């Protein structure tokens, strides 16, 4: 009698579900957006004019596809908005996270440590819509009245940092980046904190024995050891930032048909734009609008995978460099 192995089979089936679900999503997106890919061609990626066309007119045939008159789909502005806001968020979040993780693992009083760690982790579970609300009522006015004038006063000689070239309303690239930075700081902090805690005791004791100060031990011995984990944490955070929808939608100012000229200019990100356009796209009798939104999702997916791959390559190179 052959042995039935229900445990192993069940686990295998459950484990398979995850890659299967991923494959199903990619397959669906590609299949659903197939016509849009054909209609839009490569213009999709490097033009900035997005127009659903006249949804109340009779559809016309263009390039062999049925579309509303005047329809044109170009997403360069959303790609730029997504990448700019995410990379700025990483730029803001990494120094804060490294500082916080170092404080937690080295300088925080032992009795306080579990509480402080819990507080940091709590930030990670705040729903994104709450961040969005906080953004609208606290951050955006703060940027409009204080942060923008301050940045303009110091860096205003560069057009990109001059608020007079934008609405000055507070909604825009900077607001989106700061909200994103807040959302990803706990991810980077906790991964780095765990890595710092796992640095071998011998290593730091040897460093002390060589006469290093506390700061030198942390900066020169512990951080390099945790570097790979730090990059991993940043990649994870970047993935979150690229795909964040609600909070960004609420504070980004919803730009359409132009690229950000300053750090204060309104932007749109790909994820946020899909959400904000879906309702109107549903009214397109030719369905090309919804299919083009699916194509945005596909492009977003590809960008996320690319960013991940590059980061993994970085990690591998770091490891190799150290082993060499």
């Amino acid at each position, binding site marked *: 009698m052959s042995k039935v192995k229900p*445990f192993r089979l069940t686990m295998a089936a459950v484990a398979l579900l995850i890659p299967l679900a991923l494959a199903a999503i990619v397959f669906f997106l590609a299949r659903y957006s197939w016509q849009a890919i054909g209609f839009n061609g490569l213009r999709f990626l490097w033009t900035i004019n997005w127009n659903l066309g006249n949804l109340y007119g009779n559809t016309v045939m263009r390039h062999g596809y049925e579309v509303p008159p005047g329809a044109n789909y170009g997403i360069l502005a959303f790609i730029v908005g997504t990448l700019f806001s995410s990379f700025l968020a990483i730029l803001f979040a990494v120094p804060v996270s490294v500082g916080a993780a170092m404080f937690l693992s080295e300088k925080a009083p032992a009795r306080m440590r579990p509480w402080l760690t819990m507080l940091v982790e709590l930030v990670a579970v705040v729903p994104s819509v709450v961040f969005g609300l906080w953004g609208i009522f606290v951050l955006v006015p703060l940027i409009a009245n204080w942060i923008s004038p301050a940045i303009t006063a110091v860096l205003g000689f560069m057009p990109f940092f001059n608020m007079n070239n934008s*609405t000055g309303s507070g909604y825009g690239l900077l607001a989106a980046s700061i909200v994103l930075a807040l959302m990803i700081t706990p991810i980077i902090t906790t991964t780095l904190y765990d890595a710092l805690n796992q640095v071998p005791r011998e290593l730091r004791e040897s460093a002390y024995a060589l006469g290093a100060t506390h700061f030198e031990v942390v900066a020169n011995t512990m951080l390099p050891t945790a570097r790979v984990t730090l990059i991993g944490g940043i990649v994870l955070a970047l993935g979150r930032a690229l795909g964040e929808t609600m909070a960004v939608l*609420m504070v980004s100012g919803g730009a359409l048909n132009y690229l950000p000229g300053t750090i204060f200019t309104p932007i*749109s990100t790909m994820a946020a734009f899909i959400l904000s356009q879906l*309702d*109107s796209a549903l*009214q397109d009798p030719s369905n090309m609008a919804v299919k083009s939104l699916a194509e945005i999702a596909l492009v977003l997916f590809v960008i996320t995978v690319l960013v991940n791959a590059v980061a993994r390559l970085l990690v591998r190179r770091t490891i190799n460099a150290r082993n060499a």
Partner: protein
Amino acid sequence: MRSDSKLRRSVLLGAGAAALVAGLGVGVASAAQTVTLTETGSSLLYPLFNIWVPHFEKAHPGIRVTTQSTGSGTGIAQAIKGLVQIGASDAYMSNGQLKQNPGILNIPLAISAQSINYNLPGLNGHHLVFSGPVLAGIYSGTITNWDAPAIAKLNPGVKLPNHKIIPVHRTDGSGDTFIFSQYLSFSTPAWNSKVGYGTSVSWPAVQGGLGAQGNPGMVEALKGNKYSIAYVGVSFAKQIDAAHLGTAKLVNRAGKAVLPTAKTVSAAAAALGDKTPTDERISLIFAPGANSYPIINYEYAIVNKKQANKATADAVKTLLTWASNEGNAEQYLKQVHFKALPKKIRELSAKQIAQIQG
């Protein structure tokens, strides 16, 4: 042997769970004596439905209504797919959509309007005058300053500030964008050919323009930005007043500047009421008549003629008949600043409602 008994245990567990689920299902089925209708869609109609439902359910104990605010496009799509019985929409369905879904009815439930509001320090108490072409100029970036000659000409004697205008538009798909862009399209040929109208339009890139989410986002953007201008659904009039924002007079087809009041909205509805076709899909924007307010619209229920069964069909008919008659009483509508449907429109609606079957 051991793994066999484990297997048996898990099978038993599974069977138990299945029985439990089946039991629950039966429980739900036997409790379902009443018909439940689902309404989803327009965020502008949503507050009115919430005012209606308790009164309707009290009068009709056999019917329960759940409401949801998801957006007009979603309301139309879900009603077509049969996911909900009633889709709420500020915009009527296009010819193209109707051609694909010939069994769908567009039934007006009430009349809504839209105000143009602004935050202009010192002038919020003053009703500034705007025309369609001037608003089109502001929203396409050809009129950029508050003291531009085109605005000054409409407002003689008013000291307008020399400051950049911040035009605010909706980023989400919206019936408010639909009726606002229709006003611009019907009054300004250049806007009509370049941008046109829809629940989302391809807003021209205006230096200093701003996007906002939903009517609450529009009010918030007005409050937060001096020198901004925005279009807001009239059911938000209370919030506009509370924030001491300005409300504009709009130039109508007859060339007169009018405020959105009960009188001007009713005048516009009366002017186009006779033109309403039997399927009731018509724009009420830029109506003729000296007293007509130019931005008003029917709020629609989007309903499939063919419902799942007779009980559901009867319940839908009861609800729609109640909403467009008893529901049009002043006590309900005044809370959201909507206006009642004219008698003739209610008669057209009754004929459409009669087509709904199980």
